């Protein structure tokens, strides 16, 4: 394989892998920036994947080619609703954020599979007929060199994810909303004395994370797995969590980390057909993504600090 071919294989599949991680990691950022630790991302992805697939299967006659897109929106909505549980527990009922997050993960799998059995009376759904498809981005794919590498045989969702990441960056760092959101995550009491409703901001943060997590799950299910079963979401949520930390709670950072994961993943898959990796044992290729991540963190990323007040409860008048 020539270098160009390699790139033409690696880059699109990199973006394919990265998209769900990007979206979910962004979700994590909104939640933690507001001060609510959210390790329930995995669960939110499960709910998103489940909703996306079921909605897609049920309404494909109605929406035709638009089905996957509509399904995304619905998944985001359901994800947001589901995350309300986490919000109420952690913000209003002062539940430990980690505990609640773990519970969310268990609950999501339970509910989703339970409903699958209830609706279809079997352990996993059928395969959707209209998922996200490989496309060549109009015009862009005609650009020499970068066209074929970045804009051919790829998926709309990858670019949607990247665009959302950029939007998220603006929202978090350039708008009043973002400033207030971050203040509740760094120093809620200060925010309070400035007349900012900490509870409200945190609810919003968690709900956004729910929406994005759901989105991530639905993107994954409709562009990769094509059906929903117990194994559809297995660890991606935690990878997204890692991407968030790796990216130092910064939308673009998280995007970079997610793309890095995607790259390492697809490299590990095409590895054995690359001249220079041919005789590397497959297990090495399989673990490469994870080892690389650790090395990267240790080597040049160094320590990352979570928002100061994340994981804490804000109770008026206590210090």
């Amino acid at each position, binding site marked *: 394989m020539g270098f160009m071919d390699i790139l033409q294989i690696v880059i699109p599949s990199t973006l394919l892998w990265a998209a769900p991680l990007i979206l979910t990691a962004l979700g994590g950022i909104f939640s933690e920036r507001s001060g609510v630790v959210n390790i329930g991302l995995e669960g939110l992805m499960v709910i998103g994947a489940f909703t996306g697939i079921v909605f897609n299967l049920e309404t494909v006659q109605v929406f035709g080619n638009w089905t996957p897109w509509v399904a995304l929106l619905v998944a985001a909505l359901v994800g947001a609703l589901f995350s309300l549980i986490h919000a109420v527990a952690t913000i209003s009922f002062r539940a430990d954020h980690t505990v609640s997050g773990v519970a969310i993960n268990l609950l999501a799998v339970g509910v989703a599979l339970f409903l699958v059995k209830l609706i279809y009376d079997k352990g996993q759904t059928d395969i959707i007929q209209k998922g996200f498809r490989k496309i060549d981005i109009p015009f862009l794919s005609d650009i020499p060199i970068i066209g074929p590498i970045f804009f051919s045989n790829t998926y709309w969702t990858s670019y949607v994810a990247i665009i959302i990441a950029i939007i998220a960056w*603006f929202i978090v760092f*350039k*708008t*009043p909303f973002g*400033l*207030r959101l*971050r*203040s509740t995550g*760094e*120093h809620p*009491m*200060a*925010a*309070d*004395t*400035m*007349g*900012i409703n900490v509870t409200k901001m945190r609810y919003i943060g968690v709900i956004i994370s729910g929406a994005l997590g759901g989105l991530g799950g639905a993107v994954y299910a409709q562009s990769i797995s094509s059906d929903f079963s117990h194994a559809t979401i297995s660890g991606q949520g935690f990878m997204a969590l890692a991407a968030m930390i790796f990216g130092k709670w910064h939308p673009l950072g998280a995007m970079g980390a997610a793309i890095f994961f995607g790259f390492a993943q697809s490299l590990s898959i095409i590895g054995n057909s690359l001249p220079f990796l041919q005789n590397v044992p497959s297990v090495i290729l399989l673990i490469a993504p994870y080892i690389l991540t650790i090395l990267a963190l240790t080597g040049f990323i160094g320590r990352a600090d979570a928002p*100061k007040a994340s994981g804490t409860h804000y109770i*008026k*008048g206590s*210090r």
Partner: protein
Amino acid sequence: MEYVIEMLNIRKEFSGFVANDNITLQLKQGEIHALLGENGAGKSTLMNVLFGLYQPEEGEIKVKGETVKITDPNVANELGIGMVHQHFMLVDTFTVTENIILGKETTKGGFIDIKTAEEEVRKISERYGLAVDPQAKVANISVGMQQRVEILKTLYRGADILIFDEPTAVLTPQEIKELIQIFKTLIKEGKSIILITHKLKEIMEVCDRVTVIRKGKGIGTVNVSETNPTELASLMVGRDVVFKTEKTEANPAHEVLQVENLNVKDARGVQAIKNLNLSVRAGEIVGIAGVDGNGQTELIEAITGLRKAESGRVKINGKNVLNFSPRKVTETGLGHIPQDRHKHGLVLNYSVGENMVLQTYYQKPYSKSGVMNFKKIYDKARALIQEFDVRTPSEYTPARALSGGNQQKAIIGREVDRNPDILIAAQPTRGLDVGAIEFIHKRLIEQRDNGKAVLLVSFELDEIMNVSDRIAVIYEGEIVAIVDPKETTEQELGLLMAGSKKKEVGENANV
């Protein structure tokens, strides 16, 4: 005669505990009104009530004659009430400007218009003479500037009634002078001020009237012109207090602590201590006078093993302990009352008792072959709580729930009780009331009289003057002078600390 603020018969409880009991405070237009009381007397609580952070159980609040319900800080802001909190309310990952505009942002097309905001901030800061760098991250600016940011926050919201909760506790003499200037400007601009402070001198200097509270009860309001520090102190504590802790002549013996050609870099890699030489002898208290950020922190951290030094020697009883682990250093006979009691001094989630053995838990009798003996530990704790009169519900109470004053007493008890040959006390009385200060000074001198060496670091000149037998002035990481407190004046010290008369202090305060 009109009042801008009237707090009438305010009562505030915390789960049964009465923090404010029927307190009345009236603030006149254009006055600086002091609120005086011991640690835990209820000052912050009362002010938090006025600022809308707490809701009073009973009582009435009037603003400019109107009865109001201040349900949250927003309402307070709208009523023109601003508060500079005892523990700064700043997001230190934000810039100065971001902190100021937070919650009241200037926007352009939905996005924050940071340029305009910075302009705005610059304007106000010039108008009131509050020098700040609008673009600096709060984490990287001096405490003094942080406080100016807090003030700007209130002004930016157009407050004309300003509450200051212990603003000077954390400031250096120079910064205090500046702050007092700022007060005067604010009054000229038609603002009214409530000032909480433990420093009677300041009250006498700037305030018009003072309201005293004791153990949550209002004692009364007096005109400053008609009173004096001694009266105020006894009003506040309920007994007479001696300020100038009288002490006998020191009779210094052999050198216990010797610092030779010490070089230390600070966190940012800047040379903070340069070839510093210093020695403390048994039976004397050496006070280190200096403006915050001239290397005091690094010096202490290097001596105590908390920070690696580049080169030099630190000898305790002749034994070089430079770059030893903190444990080794303490074991050679050093006690350390750290500057930041919450960060270094205590494990706030540990009980008072456990904190009492933080340095000795691994020794007999508190533990034997790796197994703790909590009975012995809490016996010890009870004894120390007694001896150092730490006001705490019990030895099992988490340190977190104690007032700073009592937290400080606990730490001092712990360190003094180990009876170290050299005791290093950094800012030992910061934020404490006169009663507590008196007590702590007594203990330091006692330590000296028992033939131990004491190294005192403080930004409070009169503390230095009162307690020290020798004063070493530190400036930009070097000892620039050693003076005898009896032969110097605050003025002279101030100049030495400022390096030279020309040098403007604001800029080399650590930024």
